[in-house]
C-alpha cells in the first residue's frame, strides 16, 4: 500500500492502541458485501476496488490464473483495514462440514453450513453478515460435543497454510503495511453459542455445567496449541488480537458476572497469559450490547480493547474512558442512526465524541 505522508496505516493503529501519538487517527470501516454490490450498482468504479491476483488453482496444478480475491475499499476511501493482515491459522472444524444446499422454497434456501449448523436464509441476500435463521446446531450434549471435538484437533497440519514458512510470512507482513497484523480468536462465549445456539448454550450453564466446563477447558487448550507456532514465530509482528464474542444484548450481558467469573475468567486469563508471555498485549473484544455489568471482569481477564461499544445498548465511550482510562483502548460508538440521518445530526454525534477521544488517546 502506498505510504502517505508520515506514518504507515499500521503505525497509526499500533500507536493509537498503545496510547501514543498518531499523525492521523485510524478510521476503521467494515464494508459488507451487500453494501459494495449496492454501491457498484450506483456507480462505484469496479476497476478501482476489485482485487485480482494470480494464483495456482487446485485443479490447474501448474497454471497460474487470475482470481478475484475481493475488493479494497480502504485505499479507495482512505480508511484503515484493521483486518488487513491476518495471522493464517485456521480455528474452525477440520475437516469442514461440506457446505451444501439441502432445501429450497420460493423465499428460502436451507444449508448445512461449514460449522455443521443447519441454517435458512432469504434468497437474494449476497452475504451472511445478517445472521441466518439457525434450524439446528451441531452440539447438543456431551456426546455430540465429544464427536465435534474430533474436528478440533489443534495439531492438525491443515490449520496452517500450505506454504507456511515463518520467515517468509514475517517478510510478507513487513512488506505489506496496509494495517495492523491481526490474530483472530473466538472467545469462549462466541465459540459455545456458535456450536449450541444462544438459548441452549445459556441454559447449559445451569442444566449441564460439566459440559460447559469441559468445552471451556478444551477451548483453552485448542486455542493455545493451534496458535503456539504462529504466535511464537510472529510475536514481534502481531499487533492486535481480534477477540470475537457477541455476548450481550441491549439489556446486558447474556451471562451473569458470577458465571463469567466461574466459567470464562480462568480460561481467558490462561489464553491471554500465553499471548502476553509472547509480548502480545493488545486484545480487542468485539461484542455488541451493554457490557457494563461485566466490564471489570473483562479487564481482569486481560482484554485491553473494546469494539464496537453499541450506542443503542447504552454504551458510551466517554464513560468507559473515564472509568477505565488506559486499561482499554476503544473503537466505535458512533451512532449509525445519526450517521444515516446525516447533516447536523451526524456532525453533532462526531463532535460529541471524537475530540474527547482524540484528546485522551487510545
Amino acid at each position, binding site marked *: 500500500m502506498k505510504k502517505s505522508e508520515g506514518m504507515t496505516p499500521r503505525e497509526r493503529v499500533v500507536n493509537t492502541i498503545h496510547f501514543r501519538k498518531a499523525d492521523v487517527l485510524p478510521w476503521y470501516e467494515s464494508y459488507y458485501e451487500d453494501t459494495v454490490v449496492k454501491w457498484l450498482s450506483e456507480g462505484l468504479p469496479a476497476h478501482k476496488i476489485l482485487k485480482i491476483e494470480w494464483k495456482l488453482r487446485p485443479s490447474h496444478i501448474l497454471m497460474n490464473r487470475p482470481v478475484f480475491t475481493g475488493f479494497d475499499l480502504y485505499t479507495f476511501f482512505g480508511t484503515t483495514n484493521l483486518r488487513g493482515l491476518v495471522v493464517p491459522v485456521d480455528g474452525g472444524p477440520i475437516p469442514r462440514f461440506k457446505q451444501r444446499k439441502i432445501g429450497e422454497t420460493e423465499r428460502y434456501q436451507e444449508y448445512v453450513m461449514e460449522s455443521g449448523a443447519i441454517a435458512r436464509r*432469504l434468497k437474494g441476500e449476497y452475504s451472511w453478515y445478517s445472521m441466518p435463521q439457525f434450524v439446528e446446531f451441531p452440539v447438543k450434549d456431551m456426546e455430540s460435543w465429544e464427536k465435534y471435538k474430533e474436528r478440533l484437533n489443534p495439531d492438525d497440519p491443515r490449520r496452517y497454510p500450505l506454504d507456511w514458512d515463518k520467515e517468509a510470512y514475517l517478510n510478507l507482513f513487513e512488506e505489506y503495511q496496509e494495517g495492523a497484523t491481526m490474530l483472530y480468536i473466538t472467545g469462549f462465549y462466541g465459540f459455545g453459542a456458535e456450536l449450541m445456539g444462544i*438459548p441452549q448454550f445459556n*441454559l447449559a450453564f445451569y442444566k449441564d455445567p460439566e459440559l460447559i466446563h469441559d468445552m471451556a477447558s478444551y477451548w483453552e487448550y485448542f486455542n493455545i496449541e493451534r496458535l503456539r507456532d504462529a504466535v511464537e514465530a510472529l510475536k514481534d509482528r502481531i499487533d492486535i488480537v481480534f477477540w470475537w464474542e457477541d455476548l450481550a*444484548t441491549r439489556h446486558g*450481558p447474556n451471562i451473569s458476572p458470577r458465571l463469567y467469573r466461574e466459567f470464562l475468567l480462568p480460561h481467558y486469563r490462561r489464553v491471554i497469559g500465553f499471548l502476553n508471555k509472547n509480548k502480545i498485549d493488545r486484545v480487542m473484544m468485539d461484542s455488541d450490547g451493554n457490557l457494563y*455489568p461485566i466490564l471489570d471482569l473483562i479487564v481482569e481477564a486481560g482484554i485491553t480493547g473494546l469494539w464496537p461499544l453499541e450506542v*443503542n445498548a447504552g454504551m458510551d465511550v466517554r464513560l468507559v474512558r473515564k472509568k477505565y482510562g488506559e486499561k482499554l483502548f476503544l473503537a466505535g460508538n458512533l451512532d449509525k442512526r445519526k450517521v444515516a440521518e446525516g447533516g447536523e445530526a451526524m456532525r453533532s454525534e462526531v463532535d460529541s465524541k471524537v475530540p474527547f477521544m482524540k484528546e485522551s488517546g487510545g
Partner: protein
Amino acid sequence: MSSSCYLLEAYVKIYISLELLSWWREIKSMDLHEKIANTIVNLEDSNKLGTLIKEALEKKISPNEIIEKGLRKGLEKVGQKFEMGEYFLSELLFAASMVEDAIRVLMPLLSARSTENKGTIILGTVRGDIHDIGKNIFKMLMEANGFKVYDLGVDVRPEDFVDKVKEVKPDIVGLSALLTTTLPEMKVVIEELKRAGVREKVKVLLGGNAVTEEFGKKIGADKVAKDAVQGVNFCKEWIAK
C-alpha cells in the same frame, strides 16, 4: 345448661376447629408455595422442585394453585431480578425451563376449567427478517406465564398476521424485528390491521434490537418492549385490566 346450649357450644367448637384447620392448611400451603417459588428464584435443582410439588399434591393443594402461587410467583420474582440487573439471560431461561417442566408434569392433573389461558398472543418476526432468538425467548416466557401463544415464525407477511387475528381473536399481536431495514414492515402490519378493522381489538407490542420507543409511538404501536421480561409484564398488565 340446656341441651341446645351444649349443641351450640359444640357447633362453635367444631366451627373454630375447622377454621383453624383451614387456616393451618393455608399457612402450610403458603409455606409450600413460598418454598416452590424460592426453588425457582434460587435456581435450585429440579429434583427439589419435584419433591415439593409432590408434597403439595399429597396435601391436596390443587395443581392450579401450585402453578399460580408457587411456580409463576417464582418466575415473576426471577423476572424482577432480571429487570434489576441481578439475573441475566441464563438465569431467566433456566427459571422458565424449570416452570415449563413442572407445568408439563402437572398438566394431566389440571381440570379443563383451570387450564384456561391468561390471554392470547399472536407472535411473529416481520417480513424480510428471519431472526428469531429474542422472539423465541419471549415466547418461552409467555407460555410459562400461562399465555396461549400462536407463533407464526419468521418472515411473516402482514396479511398472515391479519388472517390469524381474524381466526383466533387474540388479545395481543407481538411483532419482532432485529434489522433496521425491516422496521418499516411493522408499520405495514399495523396499517393492515387497521384496514381489516381489527386494530382496535388487539394490543400491538413491538420488540427487537432495532426498535425504539420513539419508533413505536410513530407507527401507532401500543408498547415497545426493551426485553422479553418487560414484554411479558406489558401483556400481563393488559390482561389484568
